[in-house]
């Protein structure tokens, strides 16, 4: 087999070099390593190109296909633009961890077997935790620990599944499967935890908003989308995914509507958007899988753009709650415009990237005759405009005048936002060149007058609903409980109660023993001991006359002698 080093190693080398290098050299590595990776990604031909022996298996660290290249491309591109956004503001260890994390994502993209997949998968879990920790606050530290526990648990479940599949089928190949037995269910659950599927979705909105303004940009891109890729590779057409996806879509909207923190709104809308992709993978037709892959690509761009604009706001003002923000459009015009472009793209407004990719998923649902699913996805599209398309820019940049007059973005952050904003519009206006890179050839036409009109009606009237219902959406200083309440509070309290019960039983036993011992002591004192007063002697503690003692000794001796002779 031709030796072709995994492109992920270039990015990983970059991550390692960021630490020891200083100044311009470090900046050069930050900017060049992702571009070199991007170049290497496009050198990977189709099929398995690298094999290596590992234990008793032959692993395939590099396997190319259009789908894999598409994901690796956006991961490398994301690392570049994320690096550009962050390199002057982020701490070096956050950059290094972010690049190692991105390298894990590129590695997963080309993993030809389950073992390689698992190694890069765990690499992502480790380094993304470091990115969360780089937020530097006590809240970030605590959220990072919860995040790590969830992902390490997910990793173990995935590992159990992979071991089962390998032992029972004898193959470590990555090939389509359905969740039919214990092994495949474990693999599916392990992947779905990373996709933030229910009931394990809370980690995302818990951890991402606690990271630094630059860290959240990296975090938004990789974990959930590698899970989407893994689902496309391993579980295309798995029916359970359709409803898992619908749940995620609705969950994201409802929780984002309740949320006050701007970055947490965006975090919930990641779950919402990944829900569209998961649902498409469940539908499983070529059109649906194309839609899932295309939407993942477009989503990484506009979601990172949204997190960048929110990141600039946090960086400049130190605030991220809607109740503290508002009116920032006055002094942050570029950030506002880029935020709005990202918001329109996520809402799949015509002429933005979201429209040309998400409509493929709706079309795929129609193609399979899934009317209910189509109607729910359409309602959700309206809901996306509501919770992310308008709510985010409205409460952050417009709304009331918060009195804040922060400066606009620093040049590197501005450049990163402009690149991604341009890509959002480019893919929106000229989708055809982009469609060529999708896994299946397609002659899909994004723009038909009737469809555009339908979506304009749908979205603009959602906008009307938003402004008419504004009084119902007054921001409150609250968070919303999620399934993680079960283990953060209920199990914790139950554990505490159990401990208290055990401690109660323990102290009852202890008190019993103590009472028994002291009553024994009383008995002993009565019969053996003597009390201070020197009068109240116990039976055995009384002084005896010498004569009595001698008599008793004589009796004992005679009994002994008699016994000796008799026996």
């Amino acid at each position, binding site marked *: 087999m031709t030796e072709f080093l995994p492109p992920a190693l270039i990015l990983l080398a970059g991550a390692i070099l960021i630490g020891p290098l200083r100044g311009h050299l470090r900046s050069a590595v930050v900017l060049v390593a992702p571009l070199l990776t991007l170049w290497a990604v496009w050198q990977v031909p189709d099929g398995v190109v690298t094999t290596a022996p590992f234990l008793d298996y032959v692993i395939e660290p590099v396997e190319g296909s259009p789908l894999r290249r598409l994901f690796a491309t956006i991961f490398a591109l994301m690392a570049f633009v994320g690096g550009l956004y962050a390199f002057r503001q982020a701490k070096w260890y956050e950059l290094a961890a972010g690049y190692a994390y991105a390298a894990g994502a590129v590695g997963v993209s080309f993993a030809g077997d389950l073992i390689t997949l698992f190694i890069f998968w765990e690499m992502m879990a480790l380094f993304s935790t470091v990115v969360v920790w780089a937020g530097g606050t006590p809240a970030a530290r605590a959220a990072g620990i919860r995040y790590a526990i969830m992902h390490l648990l997910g990793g173990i479940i995935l590992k159990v599944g992979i071991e089962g599949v390998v032992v029972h089928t004898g193959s470590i190949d990555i090939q389509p499967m359905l969740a039919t037995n214990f092994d495949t269910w474990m693999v599916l659950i392990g992947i779905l935890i990373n996709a933030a599927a229910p009931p394990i979705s809370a980690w995302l909105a818990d951890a991402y908003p606690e990271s630094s303004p630059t860290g959240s940009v990296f975090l938004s891109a990789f974990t959930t989308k590698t899970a989407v890729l893994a689902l496309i590779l391993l579980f295309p057409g798995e029916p359970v995914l359709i409803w898992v996806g619908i749940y995620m879509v609705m969950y994201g*909207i*409802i929780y984002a*509507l*309740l949320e*006050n923190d701007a970055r947490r709104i965006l975090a919930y809308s990641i779950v919402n958007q990944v829900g569209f992709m998961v649902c498409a993978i469940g539908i499983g037709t070529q059109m649906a899988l194309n839609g899932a892959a295309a939407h993942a690509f477009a989503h990484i761009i506009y979601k990172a753009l949204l997190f960048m604009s929110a990141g600039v706001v946090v960086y400049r003002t130190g605030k991220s709650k809607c109740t503290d923000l508002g*009116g920032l*459009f*006055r002094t942050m015009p570029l950030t506002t415009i880029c935020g709005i472009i990202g918001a329109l793209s996520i809402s799949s407004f015509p002429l933005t990237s979201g429209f040309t990719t998400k409509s493929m998923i709706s079309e795929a649902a*129609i193609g399979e005759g899934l*009317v209910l699913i*189509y109607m729910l996805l*359409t*309602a959700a599209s*309206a*809901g996306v*405009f*509501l919770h992310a398309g308008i709510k985010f820019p409205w409460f952050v940049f*417009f709304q009331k*005048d918060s009195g804040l007059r922060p400066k606009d973005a620093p040049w590197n952050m501005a450049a990163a936002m402009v690149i991604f904003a341009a890509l959002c519009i480019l893919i929106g206006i000229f989708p055809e060149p982009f469609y060529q890179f999708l896994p299946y050839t397609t002659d899909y036409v994004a723009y*038909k*007058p*009737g*469809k555009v*009109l*339908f*979506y*304009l*009606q*749908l*979205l*603009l*009237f*959602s*906008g*009307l*609903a*938003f*402004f008419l*219902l504004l009084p*119902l*959406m007054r921001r*409150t*200083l*609250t*968070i*919303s*409980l*999620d399934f993680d309440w079960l283990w*953060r*509070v209920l199990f*914790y309290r139950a554990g*505490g109660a159990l401990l208290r019960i055990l401690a109660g039983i323990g102290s009852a036993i202890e008190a019993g023993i103590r009472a028994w011992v002291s009553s024994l002591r009383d008995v002993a004192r009565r019969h053996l001991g003597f009390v201070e007063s020197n009068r109240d002697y116990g039976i055995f503690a009384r002084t005896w006359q010498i004569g009595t003692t001698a008599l008793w000794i004589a009796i004992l001796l005679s009994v002994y002698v008699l016994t000796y002779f008799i026996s």
Partner: protein
Amino acid sequence: MNDLPKDDAWLARPSSIRLLWKVLWGVLALTVAAQLVIKIKGYFGIDDWFAFGAVYGFLACVAMVLVAKGLGYLLKRDENYYAAEDERD
């Protein structure tokens, strides 16, 4: 443009907000009226009805906001809920 010291932004003036509302209503009417000219292809009977997209989008959003509002009573907690929870013991 710059004569008002604080609320000098065009977007923040009540007169411009009134104008924007008029523009919004106009655009909304236009998207519905356009259906007289441009045919929307329906996939299952009712979705090519006149203004179906408008009504569906509006009602879906109202429903979601109301569901969120209702769930909010159940799920919303003070933002320091978990921190307070940690300090209980």
